[in-house]
């Protein structure tokens, strides 16, 4: 509908420069430039490399998004930008760019929370989100379980990783197995030829004593170490490493814990909608297992398509659109980038 707000979203919190355009819940453009290849040889995202790439990419990515959407900045009602959490220097490029665009086009700007944006993006695919909902956000930087009471104003953190992020564990295990960075897609691929029951890897923070203090928290550091020990033992014994079995068994351990705790959170809070987001939500086993377990409990799982799970500008625009529709006031021009922006803050 033409009278719904036309919102532009800018995302630069990690290694993807994203600019998205939405009208209401309708996705019009999702332009992306990635510096992932420049980070591959370091086995992780190098902050300064990411910041340099954002500066180079922002203007052409903006041009592409506007062209794809067939709009100009003069048509836009508001600009939303990821203000945090993320890499400080990378966030700063996006926030400063958003302010420049907003200033020059004389439009309001919203500094928004990246994690809330991962939840909001699902509205582009499945329409308005029932509230409350539980969201499981898993990626290379975060593994969080949250209660979404009201996406415009309040998100309650229920749990998070106490050490490595799930995506980070995928990257490290991929490296152990000689698979490329980022590790999620190649492990998913290898796992299809392997058995998830071949090796029993540990499920972090699922023992009764851990559940008391960390009911909805995650830990993947022990899992990563267990995989490393198992692989090294094989190598020391001069035996071949069964890559598909290790990949499948590792992936199963991660997905088992993530979905188990997410479903438990839904039941605990009496919530019947579970939203998955973040790069790891693109994992095929996570999706399948979540749906299988949720179905048994009468819980509906909402997962955006893989391209919308990973970082992009459309998710930021989607959240901006939600904020505008909810009548939330825009941010001030001195809004800071906040690398540690708490989950409880949806927009600044």
């Amino acid at each position, binding site marked *: 509908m033409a009278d719904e707000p036309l919102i532009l979203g800018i995302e630069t919190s*990690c290694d993807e420069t994203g600019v998205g355009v939405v009208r209401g819940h309708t996705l019009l453009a999702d332009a992306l430039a990635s510096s992932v290849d420049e980070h591959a040889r370091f086995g992780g995202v*190098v902050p300064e490399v990411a910041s340099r790439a954002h500066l180079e990419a922002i*203007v052409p990515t903006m041009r592409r998004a506007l062209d794809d959407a067939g709009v100009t900045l003069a048509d836009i009602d508001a600009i939303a930008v990821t203000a945090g959490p993320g890499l400080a220097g990378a966030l700063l490029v996006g926030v400063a*760019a958003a302010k420049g665009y907003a200033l020059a086009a004389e439009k309001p700007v919203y500094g928004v929370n990246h994690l809330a944006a991962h939840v909001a993006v699902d509205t582009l695919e499945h329409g308005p989100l029932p509230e409350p909902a539980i969201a499981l956000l898993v990626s290379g*930087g975060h593994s969080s379980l949250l209660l979404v009471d009201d996406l415009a104003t309040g998100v309650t953190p229920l749990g998070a990783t106490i050490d490595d992020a799930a995506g980070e564990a995928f990257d490290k295990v991929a490296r152990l197995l000689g698979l490329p960075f980022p590790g999620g897609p190649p492990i998913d691929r290898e796992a299809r030829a392997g058995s998830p029951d071949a090796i029993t890897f540990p499920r972090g923070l699922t023992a009764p004593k851990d559940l008391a203090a960390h009911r909805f928290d995650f830990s993947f550091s022990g899992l990563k170490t267990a995989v490393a020990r198992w692989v090294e033992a094989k190598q020391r014994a001069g035996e071949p490493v069964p890559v598909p079995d290790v990949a499948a068994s590792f992936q199963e351990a991660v997905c088992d814990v993530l979905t188990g705790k997410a479903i438990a959170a839904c039941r605990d809070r009496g919530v019947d909608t579970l939203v998955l987001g973040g790069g790891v939500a693109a994992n095929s086993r996570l999706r399948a297992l979540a749906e299988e377990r949720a179905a048994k409990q009468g819980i509906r799982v909402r997962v955006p398509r893989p391209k919308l799970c*990973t*970082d992009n500008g459309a998710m930021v625009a989607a959240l901006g659109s939600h904020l505008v529709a909810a009548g939330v006031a825009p941010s001030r021009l*001195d809004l800071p980038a906040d690398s540690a922006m708490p989950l409880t803050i949806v927009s600044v």
Partner: protein
Amino acid sequence: MLVLVLDSSTPAVTAALAEITAHAVAPRGERSVVDARAHGELLAPQVSEVLAEAGARPADLAAVVAGVGPGPFTGLRVGLVTAASMGQVLGIPTYGVPSLDAIGHAATHPRSGAAPEAGPVLAATDARRREIYWAVYDLAGERLAGPEVDTPAAVAERARELGVRVAVGEGARRYADILELPLRAGLDYPPPYALAELAAERVRAGAPGDQLTPLYLRRPDAVAAAGRKPVLQ
């Protein structure tokens, strides 16, 4: 022609307006705040303020002139991305000027009737990690050496070789004891009028704009974000 001038290559965050006519560059307002940690917060409101003060709107701008450093990267990028994004919206060219050139130009072309400096001038800003960004200018303001990044001791030696007579810039002030050069006060940071003067010919000619790339001079510290990265990806 009204131009917006931005520089964030030093702890001074600067936004200014200048009117460029056929023969002159006239300042039309300036906001400069020294705060090395708040470039991202300060710059946009400053732009908004100088425009409001001059009774101008963004659409009145004919060009954006930005100091491209060298300078600490994170802050420097704020000025450049602000210039680039505004230029894109307004459909106006953006011109990059080395920030050290502006200090060198100001030392050799002082605005207020003061005599220009004698002999080659060293312009230096703080590069952190006990190093300085530096360049040397002749009396006409032409760059003789630099921009480079070096330890103050190495710069002192180069300055002697080049016959430098006076030093300007916060980097020179900070390491005055090592540089052992006469120091000219009051020119710590790139003055916006000097940036505007250095871009004036291109502005008048309507020359094609620059893609604004920082003078990095240093390679990125290629260490992947360790441990818990704070972001999703």
